[in-house]
């Protein structure tokens, strides 16, 4: 069908705006002075970011794939955004059982008989959106703005652009989601000189950005986030809770897990409006059917630890912008998860003002992408957008530390240079490691890749190579290397991890499947063991410090729990130790509270 659409020569044609979300994706275009989001074939503006690869047929995307998921959970993938630009050894990849590859390799996903990359999966979603836009616009769509979480690093942004390319789209700009949402909000509502925060809690990622509008310039002052914190994290906590409650924790049946997760998510969504809801799961395990009631209070208890994680990130972003909460005019909520009342309550408490709910939680980001498309097409002249780089860029120094070259929250595009010299006479090259992140030690940061600098042979300290790091408007890194003596310049490719052969992949699958459970249990046990060894003397110390301030009953309970921990430690099994530690944590809650009160109020 595409071939019949009128094409436009060269780099022309409409620039559509795309929100490539963790759970849903949207597409739209700026037409006759308005940003418009398109409905898909099913009549919805939200296309679920779910792709199903059934044997012998083309990949299927969206609502249809969601239906396939219940029947074919192993051939279906959701939330692939978490995996964009990731390597197997990243902590974010823990808990996914469909992943293959060895340490340091880019993630590959095994779906049934197929092996696909996260970029390929995302490109299927993008193709679907492209089709939706083409059906509505009646012309071939070749250019797009795609939004990414503000806190995406270079590899994640590159992967997103690559997904666009695979889908046949020229990605004219990668823009940050909270920035897009701010653009959607600010264009008509913002006063000059106002400062706003955008609290973006989506399906899989969280960002907080602080922006100001000044003389037609929309400037991001700071941004902070977590690319692995979102509605999915709450769903996971809720699924774990349901598994325990329904005594299904030992079930490894992926269909049961999938049904629980979907039912849990629906219940979570309903509890944003109702005080309680019922989860029905007919024939969940053989002939066993389940019907349980979940209240909002119960859900909040499960979700609160997840929601609380956004607090420190908000404070970080404000501190980086050098602002207090009082300096902000508005806090705008976007992202589907901000429908959760407990999130709204946290925002209100933290920012000391009721959050601004004028933006559609699911649509604001896509609308912003559409507006950015119009700005680039020249159809809109209202503002200029200045975004920042979310993460510091640096290189590894001797001793394994990170030397920052471009600090986080620097306005992009930007560039910075660094001069390198040979350490020994006649040295021909030097390897440098590029890093992104905020930690002091190089190994704790994201390793972007390596760069080989060529030296003109010269006595020690006399060969000079200048390296210019530039971050373009998309937040993507380019590196220019210039030999100071010869004056030669060249752009350098950063070597990301190498591709491996299919055979190697096969071998890795077998290996990883065999060892996955063992490895994990062993590591978890060591962690629990450490915690127990630290905890036991701390309990004694706390009880001594609070002597006379706590009831003998509490002391007894705490001591009993502590004994259980020691016993479990001796038995050497993970499950009982974890259980005993949890119980001890619970039993010492009042003790901890008392300790804090004593410290704070003397």
């Amino acid at each position: 069908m595409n071939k019949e659409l009128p094409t436009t020569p060269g780099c022309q044609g409409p620039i559509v705006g795309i929100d490539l979300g963790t759970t849903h994706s949207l597409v739209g275009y700026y037409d006759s002075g308005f940003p418009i989001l398109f409905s898909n074939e099913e009549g919805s503006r939200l296309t679920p970011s779910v792709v199903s690869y059934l044997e012998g047929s083309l990949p299927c995307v969206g609502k249809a794939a969601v239906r396939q998921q219940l029947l074919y959970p192993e051939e279906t993938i959701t939330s692939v955004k978490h995996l964009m630009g990731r390597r197997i050894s990243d902590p974010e990849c823990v808990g996914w059982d469909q992943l293959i590859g060895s340490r340091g390799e880019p993630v590959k996903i095994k779906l049934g008989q197929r092996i696909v990359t996260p970029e390929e999966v995302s490109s299927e979603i993008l193709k679907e959106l492209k089709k939706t836009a083409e059906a509505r616009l009646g012309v071939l769509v070749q250019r797009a703005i795609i939004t990414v979480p503000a806190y995406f690093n270079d590899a994640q942004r590159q992967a997103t652009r690559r997904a666009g390319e695979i889908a046949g789209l020229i990605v004219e700009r990668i823009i940050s989601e909270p920035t897009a949402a701010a653009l959607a909000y600010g264009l008509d509502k913002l006063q000059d000189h106002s400062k706003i925060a955008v609290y973006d809690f989506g399906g899989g990622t969280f960002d907080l950005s602080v922006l100001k509008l000044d003389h037609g310039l929309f400037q991001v002052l700071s941004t902070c986030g977590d690319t692995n914190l979102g509605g999915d994290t709450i769903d996971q906590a809720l699924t774990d809770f349901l598994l325990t409650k329904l005594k299904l924790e030992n079930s490894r049946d992926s269909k049961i897990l999938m049904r629980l997760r979907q039912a849990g998510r629906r219940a979570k969504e309903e509890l944003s409006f109702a005080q309680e809801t019922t989860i029905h799961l007919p024939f969940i395990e053989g002939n066993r059917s389940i019907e349980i009631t979940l209240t909002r209070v119960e859900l909040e208890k499960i979700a609160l630890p997840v929601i609380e994680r956004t607090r420190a990130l908000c404070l970080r972003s404000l501190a980086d912008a050098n602002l207090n909460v009082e300096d902000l005019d508005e806090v705008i909520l976007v992202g589907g998860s901000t429908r959760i009342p407990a999130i709204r309550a946290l925002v209100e408490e933290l920012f000391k003002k009721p959050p601004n709910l004028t933006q559609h939680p699911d649509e604001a980001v896509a609308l912003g992408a559409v507006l950015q498309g119009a700005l680039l097409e020249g159809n809109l002249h209202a503002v200029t957008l200045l975004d920042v780089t979310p993460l510091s860029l640096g290189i590894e120094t001797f001793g394994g530390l990170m030397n920052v070259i471009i600090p986080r929250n620097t306005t992009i595009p930007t560039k910075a240079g660094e001069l390198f010299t040979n350490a020994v006479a006649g040295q021909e090259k030097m390897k440098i490691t590029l890093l992104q992140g905020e930690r002091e030690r190089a190994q704790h940061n994201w390793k972007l890749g390596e760069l080989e600098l060529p030296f003109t042979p010269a006595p020690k300290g006399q060969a000079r190579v200048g390296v210019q790091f530039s971050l373009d408007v998309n937040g993507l890194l380019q590196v220019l290397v210039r030999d100071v003596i010869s004056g030669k310049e060249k752009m350098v490719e950063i070597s990301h991890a190498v591709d491996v052969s299919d055979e190697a992949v096969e071998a890795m699958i077998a290996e990883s499947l065999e060892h996955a459970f063992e490895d994990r249990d062993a590591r978890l046990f060591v962690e629990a063991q450490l915690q127990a060894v630290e905890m036991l003397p701390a309990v004694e110390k706390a009880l001594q410090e609070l002597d006379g301030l706590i009831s003998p009953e509490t002391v007894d309970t705490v001591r009993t729990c502590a004994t259980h921990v020691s016993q479990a430690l001796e038995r050497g099994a993970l499950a009982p130790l974890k259980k005993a530690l949890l119980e001890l944590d619970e039993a010492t809650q009042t003790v901890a509270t008392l300790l804090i009160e004593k410290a704070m109020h003397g």
Partner: protein
Amino acid sequence: MMAPTHRDGKSDPFALLELPRRPIVDLDLLDKNFSRLAATYHPDQQNGEAMMFQKIQEATRLLRHPAKRLRLLAGEATMANNIPAAAKDLFSSIGGALQRATEVTTKYHAASGPLLKALLIKDLLAVREELIAAQESLDQWLSSLDQELQEMNLRWPQVSVEELLSLSYAFLLEQRWDHQLREALFQTTMIDHFSKNHE
């Protein structure tokens, strides 16, 4: 040696931002000019120029803080930097506070449970007090530096390069210490969350 009063046009940050070359600049005007120029030269604009955009951005960064601004006014000259006598005591008290803050916050983050964390609250509160006291002394020093700067601005251009460089260095130290103290204070705000969770 007297400070050079002008520099060749285009690459001078003051000229780029259309501000007079003086120790003190009008920061509101700096913001306003930056916004206008950045909007004009941003690569997204029809006649945008990426090179010029970056120059403007860099120039604004240099002009915003007195350390960099005074350094610019001093031209190419350099001299050995010494911690000003007035700041030596300040330096050791800030250094001590920072060191203790790092120790306690590292322990706090490493602690694996609520009880282990609660046991550290007392130390955290003490170190926080110390940081706040250090911040106050630093603020006092900053206001004396500001006074010097104003006095220099009045005298301008009757100011020597040595004076510019030593005041620039003092501001630089102040900025660094301030940054470190803020960061340490930020790290210790974790205790607020902690108590919050247990209300």
